[in-house]
Every structure is written in structure tokens, then in C-alpha cells.
């Protein structure tokens, strides 16, 4: 896979990990019908951590991070996000979802709304922020992802990379404490991948707690403080990026890395 992030200077000094627990997953299991997709997942994420999740296709990476904001329901075990346990209680689910931002592979912007409306919608309706304030926040974050001039266009008029940056800004407008990314760059052309990764690195430097499913190993090396390798619905290995790449322990990880890095 592409190693585009190598040319960037990333300042890790501000990426502090605190002792406070942001996400706690205990013995979580999930089935699709009779198919056991996630098996005994245990994962604790502290505030400020940047975690990259890798693994072969179909290994359950997407399913796992989608469980964290309850886009998928788990059947056993426990998921606690920011002190709120995810149960079938709708109030809890909406609370967690408004605290956790998510970016998707295909952006999922709302095509019938302008960029600005995409960004102000949730703050206005969920957070009940006054419109004026919501617009100011949206413009602030659109400037941050470097596309304030597109605010009044529709998503269909933007390039893929621009759309993904809007999607990030849209999530940030809710002032989330945790961000989830599900392969945010895998539908993009190489030069657009760079602009999206730059935005994500900036976010990491500001201390955002992030979980990213991605095949951008350069990004993992530079930004992540932990890499998680999944296979067949299980966490097979987790380690610091340097160790993970240079000294993988399990055979599956070695095989996966040799394929993905093309050694």
C-alpha cells in the first residue's frame, strides 16, 4: 500500500495519552445470524490514544468499530464509551453517538444539503445550538480542513478528497471526544489520500482519541501509538507501531504484513 505519509514531520510530543479510559470493550461477541463475526473482543482505549486497526478483508474490523457507536448491535459482553454503557436504551445510544464522530469509506454526506448545512445540521438539531453559532463553528472547522470556500456547494460538486474532509469537519462540528474512521482513504486517488491523511494527522496532534481502520501503514507508523491486527473476528496481535512492523509475533501478522508491504 502507499506510504505517502513518510514525507511529513509529525510532532508526537503533543500526543499525550492520559490514564482516563475512553472506551472499554469487555468480552464482546457478535453474530450475524449464525456467523460468529466478533469473538471475545477485549479492548481498552485511553483518552488521547491513536489506534490503527489492520487486518485482511472480512476480518471484522468495520464491524468492531461500528459496534462502538452502535451502528451494529453486539449480542454479549460489554461496551462502555465515555462512561456510558451501550445497551438497547435509546437515550444512551443517542448520547454516545453525539459524543463519538465517525467517518466512512464512502463519506455518507447528505447530497441534498450544502456543505455548510451538512455541518450545521446535527449541532442545531441534536445539540440545540443556535443557528448563528452553528454556522460559525462549521466555518471554523471547514477552514481547518482547508475548504471554507466550498461551503455553499453541494457534496456532488466536490472531489472525493474534499468530500472526505467535509465529512471529518461535519463530525468535528459535534465536538466529539472520540473519532472513528472506517477506511477513510480507500475510495480515494493517491493525491487525495494525502490531503485527508494530513487532516487526520492534524487531528491527532491536537490530542483527539482516534480509532482508524486503514491500510495506510505510513500513517500508522507516524501517528498511531498502538496497532491492532485482527483476523477471523479476533484481535490477534497488538503492539506499538515500530515493534508491530519490525518484529511481528504471530504468523498471521507476518503473512499479512508481507502481503501489504509487498516484501
Amino acid at each position: 500500500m502507499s506510504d505517502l505519509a513518510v514525507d511529513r514531520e509529525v510532532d508526537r510530543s503533543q500526543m499525550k495519552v492520559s490514564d482516563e479510559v475512553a472506551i472499554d470493550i469487555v468480552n464482546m461477541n457478535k453474530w450475524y445470524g449464525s456467523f460468529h463475526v466478533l469473538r471475545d473482543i477485549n479492548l481498552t482505549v485511553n483518552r488521547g490514544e491513536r489506534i490503527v486497526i489492520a487486518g485482511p478483508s472480512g476480518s471484522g474490523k468495520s464491524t468492531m468499530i461500528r459496534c462502538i457507536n452502535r451502528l451494529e448491535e453486539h449480542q454479549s459482553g460489554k461496551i462502555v464509551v465515555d462512561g456510558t454503557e451501550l445497551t438497547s436504551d435509546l437515550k444512551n445510544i443517542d448520547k454516545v453517538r453525539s459524543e463519538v464522530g465517525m467517518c466512512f469509506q464512502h463519506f455518507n454526506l447528505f447530497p441534498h444539503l450544502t456543505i455548510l448545512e451538512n455541518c450545521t445540521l446535527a449541532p442545531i438539531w441534536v445539540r440545540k445550538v443556535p443557528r448563528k453559532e452553528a454556522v460559525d463553528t462549521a466555518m471554523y472547522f471547514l477552514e481547518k480542513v482547508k475548504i471554507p470556500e466550498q461551503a455553499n456547494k453541494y457534496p456532488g460538486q466536490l472531489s472525493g478528497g474534499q468530500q472526505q474532509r467535509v465529512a471529518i469537519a461535519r463530525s468535528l462540528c459535534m465536538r466529539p471526544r472520540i473519532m472513528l474512521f472506517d477506511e477513510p482513504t480507500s475510495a480515494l486517488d493517491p493525491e487525495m489520500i494525502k490531503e485527508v491523511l494530513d487532516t487526520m494527522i492534524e487531528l491527532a496532534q491536537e490530542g483527539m482519541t482516534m480509532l482508524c481502520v486503514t491500510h495506510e501503514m505510513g500513517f500508522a507508523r507516524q501517528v498511531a501509538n498502538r496497532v491492532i491486527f485482527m483476523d477471523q473476528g479476533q484481535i490477534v496481535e497488538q503492539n506499538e507501531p515500530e515493534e508491530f512492523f519490525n518484529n511481528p509475533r504471530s504468523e498471521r501478522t507476518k503473512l499479512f504484513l508481507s502481503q501489504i508491504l509487498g516484501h
Partner: protein
Amino acid sequence: MSNTHADTVLFVRDTMLPQQEPPASTVGALGWAKANLFSGWFNTTLTILSALFILYLLSGLVPWFASPTWYAASLTECREILAGHEGACWGVIRERWLQLMFGFYPSELYWRPVLALVLLFVAVAPVLFADYVPSKLLGFTALYPFIAVWLLWGGTIWAPVMALLGFVVAFFVFRYASKQISPALALIAGVIAALLWWMVITPAITPDLSRLLPIGIEAVQSRQFGGFMLSITIGVTAIMCSLPIGILLALGRQSDLVLVKAICVGFIEFIRGVPLITLLFVASTLLNIFMPPGTNFDIILRVMIMVTLFASAYMAEVIRGGLAALPKGQYEGADSLGLDYWQSQRLIIMPQALKISIPGIVSTFIGVFKDTTLVSIISMFDPLGLSNAIRADTAWNGVYWELFIFIGAVFFIFCFSMSRYSMYLERKLQTGHR
């Protein structure tokens, strides 16, 4: 390309070419005709043959249409004027067009349905042309149904006022209750309050109110309604009500709640499986059997309910198609931002699903409007029913084409306007590709 010429392949443009006019034979009317009508011998032959055919049709139709019978007072008179030539007998339209429009509505009160129609346009303007009409008018839109009913049927003003107050009562009960109990229960409380208001309080005090404050206009019976007025009254009601009911049915059909889903599916499949005429017969005869004796449940109201239910079932399926066409990512995008079910439906899902379904929705509207002619089956005088009544008059016995052409033309104007509007709306809602 061969390598031996590699040195001659190098090319660098040093002057940019200015824009030039296209050749004259490709632009303008001439260019259009050449490209579209006379490109090649086959197209040219077709064009000439079609032109001849159209000429032949016109040579038959124009004299028929242009017959000087506007002032004839009966079919016999028409025949005298035409003196054996073929021709239309337009006298019937001149004499009876008001009847085709208003049925047996008292002619000195024609201004009331006309005013109701004009106000209808005012009421729908802020909905249909939101870009040009101030949204303050929406308040009038909400009041319009009550105004229209009063204008059309007349009678004491207290009946529509009490009906309107029922909604106000329901709203305040809901507002007050939703602070104390859950929204769903508050909604039920509001509905119960409104029903109590309409069924208990209204019948108790309306007669006294009308006696004390006798404000009202002359009452018109439903039997006197007819013609396009009847079609439009039933059609507009069914169109306005079927859209929201159809949306709820479509959502109910997708619901996770088994009972809600079963009810919606059952309703939709039952209504779609039964011809509209059957439902109309039920409305005109069977319903009376179930009603307590002595209740006067207006026939037009019964028909409106049946046509609305019928249209809602079709509408629900059209909207379900729109919902199915939305990518799953839209639901996930809305969910991931913390929008609740009704918010994401209202702000994200429905605007897009309805936009996709516009052609189907408008087709359903047009179908419903034309189906209102079926009420002639249960001896109500829609335009077609009236055309029979007109032929029953000895003066016009035998006039078919002229009446049908007139009725068809009026229906066409309405349906074509709806279709053009939907195209305008689709263009307006176009927001880039994808």
C-alpha cells in the same frame, strides 16, 4: 507509431486558436431541420410521409372543430346550421359549461366555489413555490381546509370553527402532557382530547352557539355538488391527505415493531387488492349499515375517505420505492451524528426519498384525480355523470363528442399542469450528480 519518425513527432503549439463560429448549416432552424428531419433519404421520406398524414388528419378535423354552431340551442338547430355537413355542435358547451363546472350548485352562489379555488392557489403557493412565496403564508395554508369547507357547504360558521378548535385543543393537551409523560402517551392524550371535543362538546354546544350568534351563509347540500367542482374537491382532498398518510404507511412498513408493520402491510395489500369502485360502493351503501341509525354521515365525506385511503396505499408503495433507492450510508450518516429516528427521517431520509419518488407521486396524484370520475357509478354527478344527465335532455340527446372533448380538455389542463410542475420541482431539487 514507428520509432524512426520519433524526431518528427515533437510538436509544441505556440499560438492558441481563437474560437470560431460553427458552420451556418448546423445552427438555427435550418440546421435543426437538416439534422433532425432531412438527414439521409430514409428520414426525409419519413418526414414527408408524416407531414402528409398530419395534413390529412387536419383536413378532416379542422372543419369539424370550426363549425359555426356556438349559438345553437339544441342538436336539431345544429343540424340545420350545418345543413348536412359534418361538424361539431358547440351550442351544448355554451349552454351547459357552467353546469359541467358546478353541477347543481345554486347559480347565485357560484362565487363561493370560485373563491375557494382561488384561495386554494393562495394556500398551496407557499408549499409549491417555497422559493418565491413568503413562508408566513403557511399559517393561511393550515386554515384553508376549514375556510374551504365553510365556503363550499356553507351553514353556520361554528361548525368549522369548532372543528378547528378540536385541533387546537389536541395541540395544547399534547404540549402540556408531553412535559409530564412520554411523547407517545402525550400524543394519545391529545387525540383523545380532540375526539372528546368533537364527539361530546361540539354537538352539545354548536346548536346553542348558532342560535346565540347566528353567523353563517346559506347552506348547500352535498347532493347539489357536481361537475369539476366535485372532482376537484374530492381530488384535492385525496391528494393532500394521501401524501402524509402514505409516508407514515411506508415508514410503518419498514418498522421493526412487528405489530405496526403487520398493520401497515395488511392495510396496503388489502386496499391495493380491491378495485376503487368496490370501495366506493362500500362508502355509498354498506357504511350506512354500520352507522348508528339517524347519523348523517355526509356522502361526499365518505367518498373522500375512501378515495384517500385508496390513494394512500399506492402512495405508500411509491414512497417505499424511494426509500429503498437510498443507500444504507445515508441512514448510517444520520445515525452516527446522533439524530433520532424522526429527525433523521424528516431531515435526511424523506427529503431524498420523496425527491426520488416525485415522478411516481405525481403519477399517483394524476391517477387519483382522474379516478374521481368513478363516483358517477354511485350516482354522484361528476363531469361524466353530468354528461349523461345533459344527454337526458331532449334538446341535446345524441351529443357525445363535444361533451367528452370538453371534459377531456379540462382534465388535461389540470393533469398536464401537475406533470409540468413535477418536472420543475425535479430540476429545482437537482444538486449535482450522484
